[in-house]
Structures are given as C-alpha cells and as structure tokens.
C-alpha cells in the first residue's frame, strides 16, 4: 500500500472544484476540512451540553429550542454523545489533525505531508465515521447511552440500556475514527522525521511539531488494545461471547483496563498539541525565546512514557485490587512533575517579556491559567485516598473540564486566532476576538468553579434528575446558576462564529507575517500557494524563536535568515 500512497503528488495548480475542495491531497485543504468537521461537531457537542445542563437545573421540563422534555434514557444518550463528540470528533480533529496537517509541512519546510493520499483517506474516513455517528441518533432505540467510556456490562447487552443499533454504530464510528487517526498519526510522525528542509535539525523544529509528533506516537502505541477491546465488545453484543460478562467467565473490569490504557494517554494526545500552540503563541507575543526548549521536549517525552502507566487511577473504586492503588497513585503524582516543568518554563518565557496582548495571547495565557487549575485538582483525584471520596462526583467532571476545556477550546482558540491569517489569508477582528475571550474565560470559570463545590457536596455524575435526592436539594440553586452560566458561555461563542465567517470574506487581507513570528510558516504567502512556497523552500540557519537578540536590526530573526554576527549562539 505504501508506495501508491507515498508517491509524490504533482505540485502544479490543482484543477477543478472536486480536486481542490473535496478530494484534495493538499495538506492545507485537508487541514481546513478537518477544521470544519471539528467546528460542526463542536456546535453539536455544545448544544448537547446545554441540554444536559438544562435537565440538571430544571429536571423534566420543556427544554427551550428542543421544545420538549427529555427522559433519563435520552439524558444518558446526550451525556454519552457529548463526551464522545468533544473528545474524538472535536479535540482530535481540531488540535491534532487540523493544525498538525496545516503546520507540520509549513514549519519544517516541506511541500506537503509524506503521504498525501493517505492524508486524504484519513479525513474521508473521519467524515464517514461522522456520518455513522449522526446516523446513530436516528436508528431505532436511539444513540448509544452507556457513557463515553462505554463500560460493560451496561454497554454489552442491549437490554440494559434499551439501545440496539446505536451502540454498535457508536463502536463502528469510534473504530473508524481510530483508523483515521492511525493513518494521520503515521503522517504526523514520518513527515517531520523525513521531510525537513536543509538545516532543519530535530532540535530546530518548532515545539508545536514536537508536540504533535509525541502526541501521535502516544496515540499509535495506546490505541491498539482498545481496538482489540472494541472487537471483543462487538462480539459480546452480537455473537453472545462473554469477554466482559461475569456470568460467562469474563470480566467487566477488563474493558476498563483496555479503555483507560488508551483513555489516559488520549488526554495527552489532546493536551500536547494545545500546549504546543500555547508555546508558539506565548513566545511570539512576549517577544522572548522560549525558556528551556530542550528541557520542555525531554519533559514531554518523559510524560508521554509515564502516561502509559497511570491508567488505573480511573478505577480506584471499580473493584480493582486495592494493592494496585498506591503504585498508580504514585505514577499519577509523578506525571505532574514534567508538566509542572513545562508550566514553569512557560511562565519563565512570559517573565520580563515585552508582552503584546492580542487575542491569541489572551487565549494562550487564559488556557494556561485554567490548565494549572485543572492540573492541581488532578492531584486530588490521583491520590486514591481522596479519590475514593470524590470519585463519580461532579468534582471529577469539573476537574477534567478544567484540563480538557483549557486544552481544546482555550488552546484551540489561541491556535485559530494565531494561524487564521495564514490559513485563510485574512485577519480576524481583534475587538470581537477579545470579547469572545472574556466571555469564554469568565463564563467558563462561572460554570466550573462552582461545579467543584457541587461535587464536594456529593452530587453524583450521570444522574438525570438531582431533584430525586433530598440531600442534593441545597445544591439546586448552584446548579441553576451553573446552567445559566453555561448558556452565557455558549452565547459568547457567537462572537467567534461571526468573526470566523465574516473575516473569511471581509477581514483585512493578512500580510505574510502579521505577528512578527520567526518560524517558517511566516515566510510564505498568506494563504500559502499549492506547494507552500512560490520559489525555493527556505533553508534554516538556527533554532526557532530568535526574539530579542542583541545585534539584530529588528527584535527578531526568522529561522531562514542567518543570525547577525555578535548575537549569542543559542540552543
């Protein structure tokens, strides 16, 4: 297979509507396709969040926009789909696939990805998975409703949830999504390994490229057992086997191991590209070279390795052998060390920089702040003794939204506002961007800070109607306030939606290098032509982030220009 897919694609102007916009092998068009798929799903996932929150604040009442109440079964389906969509159909396509595709060739000085046709295939497999997931809402029995983690026995027998086809289609959609990202991951690894321009050593690659490479590696090596698990679950559902059913000799815990062996590394698959984008933005907008380029890379590699031995911290109260709790608590707390290093490196990058507070910088700094918060509550959850009390409460929900929302949305928006001029050739509106940031940031805090209190107050995850529990009655007011904040959080996104589409046609045309960046993507036209550079691919003379160098005429020296004599050599 490899040769057909690896064969160099002609780099003349692509001809015709279909080859240009639909069946394109150009990494920049594929990046846009991924982005539109992700934004479509983000709208759906956000709408589901609204339905979930409405039900929790005003149980069993008519939901505005939906026009009817939802019962507990449907509530479960919405919760399941919200998680599935946001993790697999928004976060990975946007952060890893869209920006990975767009930026890797531009940042390392390549004309395209290593396997352009495989690249096209991966986006179309994701589109197929999306169609199947959409279809699962309309089959008899409705969409999957066993949680985004799909724990058996709930997921293993249709009788337990009332969902027949929906669950199988959910598994199929996930399997295809994994296939899509396996293909994508191979591209994201081989392209930076093998397509770098002259002078672009591994330790001269921008950090974003490193983050995508390591994230892809983590994904490739962790998803296998879950693919096997998905096959087993399909067999359990359709052929009557008992892999996950205790009466037949199987073990429901097995699924949890297979799922979280993938599921925990997966959070780093989402986090790392987001962190990479924040790093690029922070160094550019503080006009300072990144603090600790190599230590950051080493820390991420260490964290990637550790991410394979922390998974059972999701299972402390599952019936896991209690003797395993301590080792997994220890590895979980150790993994916060490399991430603390990265956070401090980013803070040191900001320290005494000439900070320019444009929208991408607001989102990057806001994202880092929220991520620190989520990281700290992670230490609570990672300690088995504390987790036994707070497990399966809204404290956990608040924790992982602090980490994932900060990566996916705050990091993702930083990336979109930063690279939009390169991607679409026009600038986004700054005032709308800052309104969008403050709406998103403040209402995010208004949703998720009180949610920690709701969790510590004892409210369980995955209950459709807190009104049924007398001891949760004092939390009803907080729940209504969280729901109201959620609505405002979602409404704030219209600033973005308007800005995104309006700027595409009416925005100020973008110059080649609107932010005075130093990496290679800023050396070509906005948007770059087919083949990325109109003339020769630039060669590289020094590591990225040449900001604030003594002896330079401006305060920055791009990678493709030799350092002025007298500038200190940097690593």
């Amino acid at each position, binding site marked *: *297979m*490899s*040769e057909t*897919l*690896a064969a*160099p694609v002609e780099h003349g102007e692509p001809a015709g509507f279909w080859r240009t916009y639909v069946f394109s092998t150009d990494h920049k068009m594929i990046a846009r396709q991924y982005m539109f798929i992700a934004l479509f799903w983000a709208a759906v996932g956000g709408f589901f969040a609204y339905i979930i929150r409405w039900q929790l604040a005003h149980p069993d009442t008519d939901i505005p926009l939906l026009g009817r109440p939802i019962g507990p079964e449907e509530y479960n389906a919405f919760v399941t789909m919200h998680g599935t969509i946001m993790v697999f159909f928004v976060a990975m396509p946007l952060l890893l696939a869209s920006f990975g595709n767009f930026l890797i060739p531009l940042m390392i*000085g390549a*004309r395209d990805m*290593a*396997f352009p046709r*495989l690249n096209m295939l991966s986006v179309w497999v994701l589109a197929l998975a999306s169609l199947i997931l959409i279809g699962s809402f309309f089959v008899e029995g409705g969409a999957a409703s066993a949680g985004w983690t799909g724990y058996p026995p709930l997921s293993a027998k249709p009788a337990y949830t009332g969902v027949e086809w929906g669950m199988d289609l959910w598994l199929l959609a996930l399997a295809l999504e994994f296939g899509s990202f*396996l293909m994508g*991951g*191979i*591209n994201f*690894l*081989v392209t930076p*390994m*093998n*397509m*770098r*321009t*002259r002078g*672009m050593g591994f330790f001269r690659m921008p950090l974003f490229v490193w983050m995508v490479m390591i994230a892809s590696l983590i994904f*490739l*090596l*962790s*998803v*296998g*057992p*879950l*693919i*096997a*698990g998905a*096959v*087993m679950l399909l*067999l359990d559902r359709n*052929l*009557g*086997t*008992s*892999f996950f059913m205790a009466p*037949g*000799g*199987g*073990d429901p815990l*097995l699924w949890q191991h*297979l799922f979280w*062996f993938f599921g925990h590394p997966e959070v780093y698959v989402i986090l790392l590209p987001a962190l990479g984008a924040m790093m690029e933005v922070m160094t550019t907008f503080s006009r300072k070279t990144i603090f600790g380029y190599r230590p950051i890379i080493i820390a991420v590699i260490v964290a990637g390795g550790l991410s394979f031995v922390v998974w059972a911290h999701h299972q402390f109260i599952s019936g896991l052998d209690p003797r395993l709790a301590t080792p997994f608590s220890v590895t979980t707390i150790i993994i916060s060390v490399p991430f603390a290093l990265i956070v401090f490196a980013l803070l040191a990058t900001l320290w005494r920089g000439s900070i320019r507070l444009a929208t991408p910088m607001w989102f990057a700094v806001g994202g880092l702040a929220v991520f620190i918060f989520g990281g700290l509550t992670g230490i609570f959850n990672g300690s088995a003794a504390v987790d036994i009390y707070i497990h399966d409460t809204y404290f956990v929900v608040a924790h992982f939204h602090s980490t994932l929302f900060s990566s996916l949305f705050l990091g993702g928006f930083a990336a979109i506002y930063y690279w939009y001029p390169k991607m679409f050739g026009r600038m986004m509106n700054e005032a709308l961007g800052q309104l969008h940031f403050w709406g998103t940031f403040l209402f995010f805090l208004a949703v998720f800070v009180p949610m920690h209190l709701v969790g510590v107050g004892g409210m369980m995850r995955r209950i459709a109607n807190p009104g049924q529990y007398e001891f949760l009655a004092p939390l009803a007011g907080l729940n209504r306030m969280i729901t109201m904040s959620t609505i405002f959080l979602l409404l704030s996104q219209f600033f973005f939606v308007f800005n995104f589409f309006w700027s595409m046609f009416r925005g100020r045309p973008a110059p080649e290098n609107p932010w005075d960046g130093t990496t290679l993507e800023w050396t070509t036209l906005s948007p770059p032509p087919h083949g990325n550079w109109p003339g*020769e*691919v630039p*060669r590289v003379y020094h590591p990225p982030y040449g900001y604030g160098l003594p002896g330079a005429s401006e305060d920055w020296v791009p990678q493709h220009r030799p350092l002025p004599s007298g500038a200190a050599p940097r690593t």
Partner: protein
Amino acid sequence: MSTAAHAPAEAAESTPFPSAKLGMWWFLASEIMVFGGLIVTYLLFRMAGPGWTADIHHNSTLLGTINTLVLLTSSFTMVEVHRARGRDDERRFRLNLALTILLGFVFLGIKGVEYAAHIREGLVPAKSMFWAFYFGMTGLHGLHVAGGIVANACLYAAAARPGGFARYGHRAEMNGLYWHFVDVVWIFLFPLLYLG
C-alpha cells in the same frame, strides 16, 4: 539519492530511510499493540482460571502445524520476491509473488476447514471464554492474512503492467514487512491456542 535532479533543499529525505518504510514500521508498531493487547488479555485469563483451556484438544495440532509451515514457507517466498526484485529477475518475482498469494489462500482454506469442524461440533465463540478468544484472535489474524493477500495481489497487478516491475517492484519490501509481521503473530497464536 534518486532525487538528485531536484534542488538539494527539496524532496531529499532527511533520514537514510525511505518514508514508505518508516510509515510501515510505525503502522506495525501500532499493530503490535492491537495483538499485544489481545495476547496479554488471553494470558491473564488463562493464568487466572485453571482448566480454562480444557477444550484446547479440539484444536488439531496437525492442522495447526501444517498451517504454521504454510505461513512460514510463504514468508520465504515473500523474501524471494524481494530478492528477485534486487536481481532484476521479473519472472522469479512474479512466480514467488503468485506462490505467496497462493500459500495465503491455503492458510485461510485450512483455517476455514477448522472453523467449519468447530462450528459443527457446537464449539462457537459463545461456548466459552476459550472459544471466544480462539475465534477472536484467529479471526483478526485471518483478516490480516486476507489483507496481505489483497496487498500482494495489487502488487502483482501493478507489476504486470508494462513498465510496472521497474516502477512498483520495490513495494515488495513494504508488503514483505507486513507479511512477516502477520507471520510472527501466528507464531505466537499457534502455541497459545493449539499446544495445551
């Protein structure tokens, strides 16, 4: 480098390895985790439950051994395909490729005979955990063999076109890497599922 005609800044690969080969290795790394997950799970269940493999004697060691030999021989012919390409021997290239495809079919045929016998005896996946794993693991492996046959058939068709041998012959190495991987997986499955 074969791309010497281009400007040196372009098209040359940054490492000594062709991109296709690197891609294949990464793909196989992810495949190791798929089968690795299955095999480790199988071993954990098997160690936890004595007598769990009581039904293993229903699997014919003879047929399993024959199939092992068939697959090993096909790996040999696959190497011969690659060697024939190196010696520019188109006839041997095609012959060995056809043999590899044929041996793949023989393997699947014997597997089908075994499956049919099991199902007639009522030894279906739902019978017990052992049979669930047996069908799950050999089924997934069988799908990989089928995938390899398709890849080899595509290579055969591509190489049969005028000028195809010179243009596509080097793909034999990629197909070979994959085919050997599928072979190695069987080397693990055979003792686990046939030899008590």
